[in-house]
């Protein structure tokens, strides 16, 4: 209530273009936003102010003023529009101010989505170049990484978008996806830095990216379609929840047990820990002790990853590795939040032929969805509407008992250990 009263009194003399430069300060007072700086947490307001004071970009001051005004009036004042670069139908997210007469400095604040490298492996030279180009044309604000998986370059005016893109593109970067097409894919760190990776998800990400780059830049499907590539069932990209096409590493055979490392682990942590923190916490009770030795009943294992995470040296994924494809994960809108359902229980992902077969399968799935899906309908919603049977027939996939049986009990089973 205090804030609202403040707003009405301040509105009068907020005449757009009147800055407090007279009192030697670059930024206008933002008492509401300042509240976000109190407390023990990092605050985007502090970062914003620091950047604004350092670069003296009026756009940043305008955005702070507009946000302050929003907080006072409890309304948002950004609206969308259409801005693209030559040859692209997607990649720039427009933000025009609805109150540009009041706060002209924040009239435009568009976002450029930039694709991340597979596994988010960058080198510092490229990052520096990206930052330099961005500070030249845009606000300098970067989000690593937005919910879409992209590097979000936030705050640019329409007139600089093409130039900025040209320079970024020259430096090796490309715009990400937006609209009703293939979206920017995301992969976990994969075999690059993780021993649990069951396939080369970085390679698969790159191959899929190259294959689908046309439909990423020129969206023309029913709605968005997202890939995420997780190396193992720990699913560090949250693929099951956040992607239409969740490609998750898995294995068919038994978990590999290094007996010496199990002994070393028990010596260090004690038998109690093995029983209480590993065996008792197995969700399907697949682990038991046989003559004092750890035994895993493979038939009962649902690859929840708990024991592997608890005993990283002693246990590792099986030898016969590949991927599972789950489909239909999405957030709200229409039928509500869905997690992915298992569509392809197992596919080998070792040779180039395996990758090609996978991409071909995805193409078939997309072709089916293009025809069977309605406008603004995610693929999971289409499958739910027409039924799994129709879908797997249309996509040429053979029915498998694992499609209805649970592949894992709970992908977020994370017990304390």
């Amino acid at each position, binding site marked *: 209530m205090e804030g609202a009263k403040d707003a009405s009194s301040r509105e009068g003399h907020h005449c757009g273009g009147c800055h407090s430069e007279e009192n030697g300060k670059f930024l206008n007072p933002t008492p509401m936003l300042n509240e976000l700086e109190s407390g023990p947490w990092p605050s985007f307001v502090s970062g914003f102010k620091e950047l604004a004071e350092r670069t003296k970009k009026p756009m940043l001051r305008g955005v702070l003023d507009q946000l302050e005004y929003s907080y006072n009036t409890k309304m948002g004042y950004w609206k*969308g*529009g*259409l801005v*693209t*670069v*030559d*040859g*692209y*139908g*997607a990649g720039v*997210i427009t933000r025009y101010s609805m109150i540009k007469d009041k706060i002209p400095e924040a009239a435009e604040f568009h976002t450029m989505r930039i694709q991340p490298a597979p596994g988010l492996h960058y080198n510092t030279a490229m990052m520096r170049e990206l930052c330099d180009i961005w500070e030249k044309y845009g606000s300098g604000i970067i989000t690593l990484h937005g919910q879409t998986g992209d590097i979000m370059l936030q705050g640019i005016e329409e007139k600089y978008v093409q130039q900025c893109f040209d320079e970024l593109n020259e430096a090796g970067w490309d715009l990400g996806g*937006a*609209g*009703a097409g293939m979206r920017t894919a995301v992969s976990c760190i994969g075999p690059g830095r993780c021993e649990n990776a069951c396939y080369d998800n970085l390679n698969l990400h790159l191959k899929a990216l190259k294959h689908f780059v*046309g*439909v990423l830049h*020129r*969206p*023309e*499907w*029913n709605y968005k379609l997202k890939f995420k590539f997780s190396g193992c069932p720990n699913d560090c990209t949250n693929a099951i929840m956040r992607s239409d096409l969740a490609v998750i590493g898995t294995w068919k055979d038994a978990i590999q047990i290094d007996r010496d490392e199990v002994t070393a682990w028990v010596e260090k942590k004690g038998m109690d820990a093995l029983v209480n923190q590993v065996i008792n916490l197995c969700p399907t009770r697949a682990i038991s002790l046989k003559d004092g030795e750890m035994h895993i009943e493979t038939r009962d294992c649902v690859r929840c990853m708990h024991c592997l995470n608890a005993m990283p040296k002693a246990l590792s994924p099986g030898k016969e590795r590949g991927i599972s494809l789950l489909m239909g994960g999405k957030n709200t809108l229409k039928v509500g939040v869905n997690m992915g359902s298992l569509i392809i229980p197992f596919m080998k992902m070792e040779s180039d032929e395996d990758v090609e077969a996978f991409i071909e399968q995805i193409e078939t799935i997309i072709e089916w969805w*293009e025809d069977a899906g309605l*406008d*603004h309908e995610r693929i999971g919603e289409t499958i739910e509407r027409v039924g799994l049977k129709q879908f797997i027939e249309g996509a040429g996939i053979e029915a498998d008992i694992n499609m209805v049986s649970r592949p894992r009990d709970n992908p977020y089973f994370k017990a304390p250990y």
Partner: protein
Amino acid sequence: MSIEVNGATYETDENGYLVNLEDWNEDIAVKLAEGEEIDLTEEHWSLVRFLRNYYDEYQIAPAVKVLTKAIAAEQGIDKKEASEFLYGLFPKGPALQACKVAGLPKPTGCV
């Protein structure tokens, strides 16, 4: 906002889209295309006519996939090539530029 063609003034929205669909004629299309820095060739015109006929029939601009499929069928090329062809004609995308030149309302949704 507004544009002037042959001495007459036509109302446009803030993004330059024609407000009244019935105002449209070929001279206006040329003027709107000029604003997008596009020289209209016969290929552009055939696309513009397709858009207007589609809109007359369905009261909505076609989805991009409808457009690419129609182009693919007409030219005997595959969908990927049709998409590239489409963006060759209208570099900033069919939604942004082709609809504008054809005098259709600004497409909704996040394109």
